[in-house]
């Protein structure tokens, strides 16, 4: 990847981080729509299916325009449902593009994720084609513009002997077969969408297909509200003997029309083909060089106890349990390097520290934290920040933040709880672990598993002997440095209160009781 591309990506990432921070402040991370862009696209698909079924009851292929006009003006709630169908389709495109941009800027478009990326590009293309057929169904001036331009583009290809554009000459009325074929495509394509969606999530464990209920309700509620407040009407009907004066373009689907209509169709194919090739081949040209590609996880079979936790926790189903061949009973974990993205979450899941990417296993983390403590020597009033490299307001790049020493980890989900215990037992007043918000985790489930390991006994759990009052977990996106500062401040006050309470507890009350009359002696033990 050239340095220009890297810089552009970095710039894009900064812009996205800023937006994440803004949306987190406005909507809180749990309901940030940018974190749920893929799931919002699925919600819109459900809305489209439901509203589409209703509209299908009243659409007539022999009278396309008048049947849609009847739906709009006469059928019960027809105008709103038609509008809801349209706005849901627009939101689908927005959500898919946002999702694709996020995934690309987060470097999740190559390697084991290449299938998800390519199927995602295919999903976008399929949505566009489905939308085009939907607009042609209405057979208004926009449909005419789309159909005529589409025919012009297809006629530029040496595929059919008869120009498709002759269908729209007007010499004879359009055959019913045309509208039937169009309707058939519009109905069958969603089946293809379902298949592509299955492929899109086939390599992840526990895909989160739907957003949180509250956000889902808001999305549907906003769409319904828009449909009621801004219902679509009917544009002028198509007239094949008239050049349309003005066309109400839906730019989400017809964005290319003003450009392609102005140039030779060959240029449209060349540019469109080039852009499509760039998108489809992104897993190859966006892949970092060998030196920057992290190695996959490895299993130390001597240490593996076959507990299966790593296989359970892996967000990419890259770990399988297989029979041992070393004479020991039970199973042993094995990592498929083709599926492993080197997130390191398995390292955090393994109590005996027998799995993880080279340099980031539990043992490597312990060695790292020992050196960290030697360097910083945190005291009982000090809070140590454990910060994820990707998010955490970017503080993972610092050695200290507001006086607090920073221990960076590649992904908060890879953090082994022994590191937290070691920090507390070495005398740190508190450990503040800052992770990406759960739905923004670059490795999908790192933040979720970390929370469960720290506070809910998920293997490899933080031991009971560790004072939970001295451990806190906070969530902050890459653009959420002020959130980290606020959490750190609050935790530092909390730790100071703990220290004060500990000192007061250590006051020797007996010495006060034993003091001679008239004299009070107070011995304070620190």
């Amino acid at each position, binding site marked *: 990847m050239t340095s220009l591309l890297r810089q552009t990506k970095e710039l894009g990432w900064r812009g996205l981080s800023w937006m994440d921070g803004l949306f987190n*402040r406005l909507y809180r991370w749990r309901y940030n729509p940018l974190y749920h862009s893929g799931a919002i696209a699925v919600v819109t698909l459900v809305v489209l299916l439901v509203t589409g079924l209703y509209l299908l009851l009243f659409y007539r292929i022999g009278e396309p325009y008048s049947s849609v006009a009847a739906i709009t003006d006469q059928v019960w709630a027809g105008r709103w449902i038609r509008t809801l169908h349209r706005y849901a389709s627009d939101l689908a495109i927005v959500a898919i593009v946002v999702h694709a941009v996020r995934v690309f800027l987060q470097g999740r478009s190559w390697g084991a994720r290449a299938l998800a990326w390519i199927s995602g590009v295919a999903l976008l293309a399929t949505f566009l084609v489905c939308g085009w057929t939907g607009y042609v169904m209405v057979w208004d001036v926009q449909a005419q513009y789309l159909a005529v331009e589409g025919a012009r583009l297809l006629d530029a290809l040496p595929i059919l002997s008869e120009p498709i554009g002759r269908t729209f*000459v007007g010499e004879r009325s359009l055959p019913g077969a045309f509208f039937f074929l169009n309707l058939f495509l519009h109905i069958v394509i969603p089946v293809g969408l379902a298949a592509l969606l299955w492929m899109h999530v086939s390599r992840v464990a526990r895909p989160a297909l739907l957003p949180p209920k509250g956000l889902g309700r808001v999305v549907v509620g906003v769409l319904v509200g828009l449909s009621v407040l801004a219902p679509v009407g009917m544009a002028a009907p198509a007239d094949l003997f008239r*050049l349309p*004066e*003005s066309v*109400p373009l839906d730019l989400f689907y017809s964005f290319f029309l003003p450009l392609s209509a102005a140039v030779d169709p060959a240029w449209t194919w060349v540019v469109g083909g080039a852009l499509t090739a760039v998108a489809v081949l992104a897993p190859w040209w966006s892949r970092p060089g060998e030196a920057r590609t992290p190695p996959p996880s490895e299993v130390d079979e001597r240490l593996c106890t076959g507990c299966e936790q790593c296989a359970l926790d892996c967000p990419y189903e890259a770990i399988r349990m297989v029979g041992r061949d070393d004479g020991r009973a039970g199973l042993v974990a094995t990592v498929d390097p083709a599926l492993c993205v080197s997130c390191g979450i398995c390292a955090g899941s393994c109590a005996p520290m027998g799995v993880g990417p080279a340099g980031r296993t539990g043992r490597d983390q312990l060695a790292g934290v020992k050196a960290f403590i030697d360097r910083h020597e945190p005291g009982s009033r000090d809070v140590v920040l454990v910060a994820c490299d990707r998010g955490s307001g970017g503080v993972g790049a610092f050695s200290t933040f507001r006086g607090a020493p920073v221990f960076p980890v590649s992904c908060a989900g890879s953090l082994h709880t022994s590191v937290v215990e070691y920090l507390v037992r070495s005398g740190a007043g508190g450990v503040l672990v800052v992770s990406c918000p759960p739905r923004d985790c670059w490795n999908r489930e790192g933040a979720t598993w970390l929370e469960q390991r720290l506070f809910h006994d998920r293997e490899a759990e933080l031991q009971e002997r560790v004072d939970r009052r001295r451990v806190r977990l906070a969530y902050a996106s890459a653009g959420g440095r002020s959130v980290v500062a606020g959490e750190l401040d609050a935790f530092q006050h909390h730790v100071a209160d703990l220290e004060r309470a500990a000192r007061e507890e250590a006051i020797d009350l007996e010495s006060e009781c034993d003091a001679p009359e008239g004299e009070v002696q107070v011995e304070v033990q620190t």
Partner: protein
Amino acid sequence: MIVRALGAVLCVGLAAAMVGLSSVPWPVHEETHGLIRLSWRMRGEVVEACRQRSAEELEELPAHMRNPEACEGRATTYRLRVTVDGEERSDELVRPAGARGDRPIYVFRDVPVAPGSHTVVVAFVPVDSAATSAPLELDATVEVEPREIVLITFDPEVQGLVVRP
């Protein structure tokens, strides 16, 4: 409270933007645009050249294929010339469709014109000297309204080019 209000404002703004972009009135054709469209389908003439096979040639053929006459046919290419108000707007060869040139001939051409009255001369002439079919010709004055498409097509009933509407 302020944060929630700002969040709501942003949501409304983005929703309004989506609604706006969903239906943008895009000017496509001005009043000064009109179109003459040529569109027809016809079976071109097939010109055959026949000759007698020699005895040696017949000897080489299987018994059931010894037709004394050998004919080779080819579909005729046509030349399309269009002039509007004396100005040549198209002069091109139109070949039969298909990879082997054995499909019908399709003509589909658009000639942009300004609205108004225009003298249109169309000639669709076979270029093969052996062709015997009559050329298709049209010499007509057409009235083109603003943004109107005037169609010139082949009418099989009259076996000639006609103007529609």
